[in-house]
């Protein structure tokens, strides 16, 4: 790719890094205190010391539990080739005992090139599981059972969990059970004898946006030594990037990004968006890219709908809001028209339109999703008589009015009055 624009190459490199979870989480693998090293120690000690273990990974969705687990397993495969075999189960699919045993048998047969029979009964499958555990124990091969959505396995009689964790207690088997769940009290959901067999090791995946994001951004965005990139381009790109990351404005953008969700996957989406907005002619990222990425991550669909409304439709919305404040039981098109007329009478506005024009505007509001019918009764009646409700809150409406291009000041006054 000699003749290509180095900015394009840089964009390509960064985007492929963001899309690779192993690369993203390898940042945390250097720290000895991180969850990566703790998990690696637990599984590798089972491989080297031939002891059984069980561990639970807890954390909210998108914080990297499965990614770190995959990274650990990949690294251990490289370090101890052919000594680990992995069986993956998911609570959404395999919470039923029969289903789970069949799936375990299928995966083991596939890995060791054995004949798998779909007709095998429950009894045969459970005997197969026990003998697999015994044989792998004798051959010093560790089996790692990965149970995703662990809390869904705890419904019902928990037979699968009991048999797996019971196998951990016996000296004949060599296996590790790793449960992944987003419920913090997943181990409280276990029955008492299953909980007694569980080893109470929990690894908590917490995300603290501040310093972590800085490190993550540097890890992903700083360009590496690559043959496709000229050296001076790389150096100038990295320098500009470091300046941006240290900027106060950037920190403000990050704070706003994290105010409602601060998981790793949210941050990755933000970085991807920002990199896509990169100006290829200038050849580097700028603070503007990050700022323009923010609204595409935090979309406000109601604001976007408001932006396209006409002034008449805004009047109708404000009238509905006033009716809501007055807490009238019945709010339908007729009452809105009455309110509209009373405003016109008291303020002598110039925006007074005929009834059929208003009805047309009202129907557009219904289609846009800013108002809707209260219930599904009275389908036969026309839109004029059916009760309606607002789907947009006072605060959002006020924000929309303030950013509207030519909002009549009367509307502001009307809105502020009820506040």
């Amino acid at each position, binding site marked *: 790719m000699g003749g290509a624009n180095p900015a394009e190459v840089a964009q390509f490199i960064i985007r492929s890094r963001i899309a690779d979870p192993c690369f993203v989480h390898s940042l945390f693998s250097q720290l000895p205190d991180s969850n990566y090293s703790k998990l690696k120690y637990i599984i590798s*000690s089972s491989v080297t010391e031939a002891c059984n273990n069980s561990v639970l990974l807890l954390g909210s969705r998108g914080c990297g539990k499965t990614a770190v687990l995959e990274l650990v397993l990949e690294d251990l495969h490289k370090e101890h080739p052919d000594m680990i075999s992995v069986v993956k189960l998911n609570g959404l699919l395999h919470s039923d005992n029969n289903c789970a045993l069949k799936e375990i048998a299928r995966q083991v047969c596939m890995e060791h090139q054995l004949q798998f029979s779909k007709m095998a009964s429950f*009894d045969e499958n459970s005997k197969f599981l026990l003998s697999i555990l015994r044989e792998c124990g004798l051959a010093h091969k560790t089996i790692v059972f990965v149970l995703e959505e662990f809390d869904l396995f705890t419904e019902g009689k928990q037979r699968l969990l009991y048999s797996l964790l019971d196998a951990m*207690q016996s*000296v*004949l088997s060599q296996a590790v059970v790793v449960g992944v769940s987003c*419920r*913090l009290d997943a181990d409280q959901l276990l029955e008492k004898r299953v909980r007694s067999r569980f080893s109470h090791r929990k690894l908590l995946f917490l995300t603290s946006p501040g310093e972590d994001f800085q490190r993550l951004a540097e890890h992903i965005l700083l360009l590496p030594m690559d043959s496709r990139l000229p050296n001076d381009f790389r150096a100038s790109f990295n320098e500009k990037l470091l300046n941006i990351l240290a900027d106060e404005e950037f920190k403000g953008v990050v704070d706003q990004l994290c105010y*409602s969700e601060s998981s790793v996957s949210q941050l990755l989406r933000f970085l991807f968006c920002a990199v896509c907005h990169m100006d290829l002619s200038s050849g580097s990222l700028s603070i503007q890219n990050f700022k323009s990425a923010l609204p595409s991550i935090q979309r406000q669909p109601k604001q976007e709908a408001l932006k396209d409304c006409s002034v008449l439709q805004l009047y109708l919305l404000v009238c509905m809001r006033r009716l809501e404040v007055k807490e009238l039981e019945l709010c339908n098109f007729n009452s809105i028209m009455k309110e509209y007329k009373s405003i016109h009478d008291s303020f002598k506005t110039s925006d007074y339109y005929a009834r059929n024009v208003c009805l047309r505007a009202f129907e557009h509001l219904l289609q846009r999703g800013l108002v809707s019918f209260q219930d599904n009764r009275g389908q036969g009646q026309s839109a004029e008589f059916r009760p309606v409700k607002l789907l947009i809150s006072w605060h959002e409406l006020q924000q929309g009015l303030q950013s509207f291009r030519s909002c009549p000041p009367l509307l502001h006054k009307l809105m502020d009055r009820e506040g």
Partner: protein
Amino acid sequence: MPAFAAPRHSPASDPTSVAVTPRKSRLRSDPDAAIGSPLRKSPRLCKEGSPNSSPKIEVIRKCLKSSLNLSESPEKKQLTEDFVEGQNWDPREETQLRAVNETLHVSTAPASVVCRENEQNRILDFCKKCVKEEKAGSLYVCGCPGTGKTLSMEKVKVMLVDWANKEGVQHPDVLSINCTTLANMSEIFSKILGQTHYGKKPSPSTSSLQQLQKLYSQHTPGLKMILVVADELDYLITKDRAVLHDLFMLTTMPFSRCILLGVANAIDLADWFIPKLQSLNCKPMVITFCAYSKDQIINILQERLRALPYTVFQPQALELCARKVAAASGDMRKALAVCRSAIEMLIGESMLSSLDETEDQQRPAANDMMSNIVRINHVAAALSKVYKSPVVDTIISLPQHQQIILCSAVKLFREGKKSTILGELNKYYVDVCKSTMIPPVGILELSSMCRVLDDQGILKLGQSREDKLRRVTLKVDGADIVFALRGVRFFRNCLK
């Protein structure tokens, strides 16, 4: 069965290892291994398998120091005189570490079972009586999880066979069933039938239960006694309690040859579920395995550690562990897990100190003796890890708006209500936001944040046609939330 690669034999002992391995380890696959001896996994020296792969030393030191949170214990000097020392052990030595981990692992059955001799003898006497008199009988063993029931049953089975061989009496066939593995309830009868008849298939017209009943209601000479050990008996409980009933009734038949030992957790299983037996006056004998007391736990741990030639634990540390576990549940598995966790804390600390040594040589050699024993602070850290709930840490690291939602929920529920609808919560949330000049988010985003909190188990969100009408309940104690948010001044004032 598929054949795997032949198991590796234990490698020749490493000439550089100093410690004496405590016991001769056998290969599990060794065909000459005696049946009664506790089988042990063969150790493997895996050179690449050390827990620390080359990280930067500075980073380790800082991180370990902050994370381990171990204070320098001021009692180091005094405690040296307090206990009798055995030979010292080096936690960094791999073979020693492996040996210690093995002795403390739950799967290692100790050679002699301490603190359960009384119960074992009672069960054994009952079985001996049944075998000698060639009569059937039933026994029910109950107790909390982790109190040594299955372990004792294994020992009793072995001891019974030995005794029968010594006495010259015909020893009974032994059948162990774990009731969780049964596909359906009546399979237990076909298993018992299979054991007695050595392969006589049950005919399709009569069920296995009927065949057994027929067999036991007439005199069959030469039929061997059969000892049935049924683990996790409460899995056989159905609405009409038929299976459990029939199982115990089998032992009351005139010519029955079945000795039934049932194991479960419920203390009053026999009373509740087998009332007919009571009326027939053949209630099974009940043996209760009480939860372990503090002294028993200390005894058991010391018995396990006695096999090692060096002292691993300080006596006070063992006592702290035993006290805490006995007060909580009396579960031996938990005690072993805490001990292993404490050893890992010690390893972490010794890694830290070895890094310090390499960095500045002027420091006088740390008190080696003290640094190789698991002390009270290690056990305390391990106990807090096992018993701590992750809720407080998670709330502290939640994003801002989710914390505001929790704060408004606490305020709402303080007024006495137990649950509310999303619309109400929205109102309180908007109020709280207004008081700090933070712009509140719309109802859609609020509802998706509540769903995230519901996933984590902090709130509970019900179902409803309309979003605003969904029921919201707090699953976490309000005091925990107040405690977690006390670091932020705004929440402190808000929740006063």
